[in-house]
């Protein structure tokens, strides 16, 4: 687990509640802004999208790359973060 970032650990460690989309691992200010513009203003909305894509990491990363212009690493990190969150709390 040493490869996960602090952000990841923070997000995955507790229910996301009302956290902003920028609390997601891999999503910074710029990407977060872009997502918010598209209507994904909260982390749980992105979670919704993740769930809509049947928790498929590949699909989600594709979508995230398209929607926010994230690169593979960022999208992968976000997907992993969400996946683990789901494992822990869903």
């Amino acid at each position, binding site marked *: *687990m*040493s490869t996960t970032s602090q952000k990841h*650990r923070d997000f*995955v*460690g*507790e*229910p996301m509640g009302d956290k902003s989309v920028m609390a997601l691992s891999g999503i910074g200010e710029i990407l977060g802004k872009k997502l918010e513009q598209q209507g994904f203003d909260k982390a749980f909305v992105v979670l919704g*999208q993740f769930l*809509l*894509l*049947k928790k*498929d990491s590949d*699909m989600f990363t*594709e*979508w995230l790359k*398209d*929607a926010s212009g994230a690169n593979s690493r960022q999208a992968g990190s976000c997907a992993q973060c969400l996946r*683990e969150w789901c494992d*822990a*709390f869903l």
Partner: protein
Amino acid sequence: MASTQLTDEELFSELKRFGFTPGPVTENTRPVYLKKLKKLREEQQQRGSRAGKTRNSGAIHSSSGGGNTAGSRPASHDVTHLSSSRRPGRKSSVLGFSSDESDAETPLKRKGLNQSRRADRSPGFPQHPMIRPTTPSVATKSQYGATLNSNNSSPGPGRQRGVLLGWGVRARSSPEAEGRDYDESGDDDDNEGEKEKNSRSLNGCGASHLNTSKLAGDYSDSDEEEVGGPGVGDQQRERLEPNVRRSHTKAEFAYHVVGRGSQTGGAARQVNPPEGLNMVGNRREEGEGGEGKRRDSDTPGGLRSHTVSPRKTIYVSLAENHGGETGKNNHVDGEDGAYRSSRFAIGLRPRFSNYSSLSQTYRSNHSNHTAPNHSYSQAMLKQKLSVPEDELLQQFKREEVASSGSFSAHYLSMFLLTAACLFFLLLGLMYLRMRGSGSSEVDEVIKSHPFGSQFDELYNKTEKDLILKLLLNLHDHLAQVAGQYDCGDQQHLNRSLSMAEAATYLRAQNQEFDGFIETSLEWIIRTGQDVGIRLTGQVADDPLTDVSEISRLESSHPKMPFTCRFRRAFLTVISRVSLIAVVVGCVWSVVCYMRYRWRREEEETRQMYDMVERIIDVLRSHSDSCQENQDLQPYLPIPHVRDSLVQPQDRKKMKKIWERAEKFLAANESRIRKETQRIGGADFLVWRWIQPSLSCDKTMNSKVWQGKAFPLDRRNSPPNSLTPCLKIRNMFDPIMEVGENWDLAIHEAILEKCNDNDGIVHIAVDKNSREGCVYVKCLSAEHSGRAFKALHGSWFDGKLVTVKYLRLDRYHQRFPQAQGCSTPLKASSLHLNTTGTMNTMPRLHHRGAANSSGFS
């Protein structure tokens, strides 16, 4: 495929068709799913087009063919449709051609092959220039053209090319181009044969086409093992035949391609059954074809240049997997060798090695044949005959060849060895003979004598001869006598002859000797050289001056019969050798003995040290237990120690070691004292352990935190803190704890550890719990979570602390006083409050430690 026209449901179903279950298609997920669909379609097309592309170098026709045949079909089904569409056409053509095949192979195989080939070839046909238009091929082509692209003007070569391309050149477009140029040299027969085969194979394995195409693709990319099981092993094998044939035609050797092809096909078949990997067989076939071609290239020199290039084109693609054979093929020609090496870049290692070895065998048989291809085909026929035998037999043959080679080498070495032995034997014999017989000296003696020129002046020739002959006779006789004497022949009692005996003998030889005896003897005396006759006087070792003093004559060159000589020499040699051997043996045995002794010594020393250590351990533990238990005597009788350490059956063996250990302890161990004590009325020599126990350090490491055992992560800790109450385990051992306020120390320690977390409101140490439990209540779950992180997995006082959450109500049940606690506890305050206590603590601990030192 216009993606915008797809509705959500259509997109959904399309994705489903690819075997991918999508989630709901919403406005957000739609673009993603469209991309996915596109990717899936591309993949399918790629799979289909890969076959097509490799099929034809230009890949134009493949796509067009694909487009023609599968215009409205989804790309994924292109290939299958293509193949299926081709299948029926093939079948008929195959049947039509079966009669043309002079090959003994079953039409079924060809059918399968043709079918597989078909899909590959048909697109390729139009592209290739016609080399030899033949009517049957044209007819065939037209058939195919109907199903495929219609530009099949060059059936034969085109097909060949298609075959070639389809088969091996899938991955390579450049070789194909070259090969295409080369097509002109193709054979008609081969074309036909190929055609038939192609059609048949295509007919036969429509399903396998995909596989084969895939395989072809894989073939270029990966090893032979990639050939998965399309389930049409036969068909794949049959595929070999057209490949082989094709290769043959490519090489355009004039030899009987069909026959050869059949042979190779047969070979392939033979070879394949064991493995079922047609790829492998194909490769071998290719190699075989290459081999054959190469051989044939020897004959038609003019063709060689032609063959090289097409071969190269063909085999570069095909021989990706023939790498293993490079070395083997090198022997053929420099050119060919190079070509071969390029050809067999990758290879079926095991199979091909077999094959190539076999072919090498044959090659070696026919390497010098400049006979026409006919003879080569004969060889191939012969090969075919052998091929039907098991692969093992092929291997066996190869081994035979190898063994014959080694056999001759073996013979050679034996021969050399024998020659050397004989030489030395002869040398020895000659030496013996020389030594034994002075016959060679005979003439010399007559001609040259050691008497000097005076001799010559004094006497005339006859006298000289007489004297010399006399001397010679005497010499011989004496030699004989001496020899016989030396050999153990008891005929003569003495090695030497007395004067009278000598004189008698000489007179007996020749009457004329009589007068010259003394003169000759005089001359012998006069000359100082050794003429082989030794004259001794009455008194031994006196130099003689006069003939009258001579009493005995002895030969200094005894002549012994050859066997006697040999025997003596032999005995001498043997004795000397045995002497040396004995000496060497003695030295070696001495060395061995020394080594053995040295090892024994080491072993014993090691055992002694081991024993000493055990004794020390026993004594130390005994003294420790004595400290705990004051009833025990602090010393142990030596015999008791020995008997407790050494098993009864070993006592005799270990006696020596034990004694050594005892001595060692007495001399080198200061912590053990030997004394005499009276135990139970009897005097015993005892050992007493006199080292005070090292118990001081125990106080040092009590009640401190010693680091974390593992990092806390999601795996070993709950992701979020559940309750504000914690139960901490394994912080102490109630039995071991001594002192009044060790629980306060525990409090202190916990607070100290969580000093950043000012949310701990209550701590309770369960003094009676065996597990060393401590209960902690925090202000909130968040605080407890922090405390959890800080405490869980840490080392405290040498124990691993674990934490878990407790339900709040239970906690309150247990510790009702905690319900009211809401002020965070501080370590410093505790510390301040208990400074007095703390000061006494170390002492208490020390005392306790001193007490507990025995517990260790």
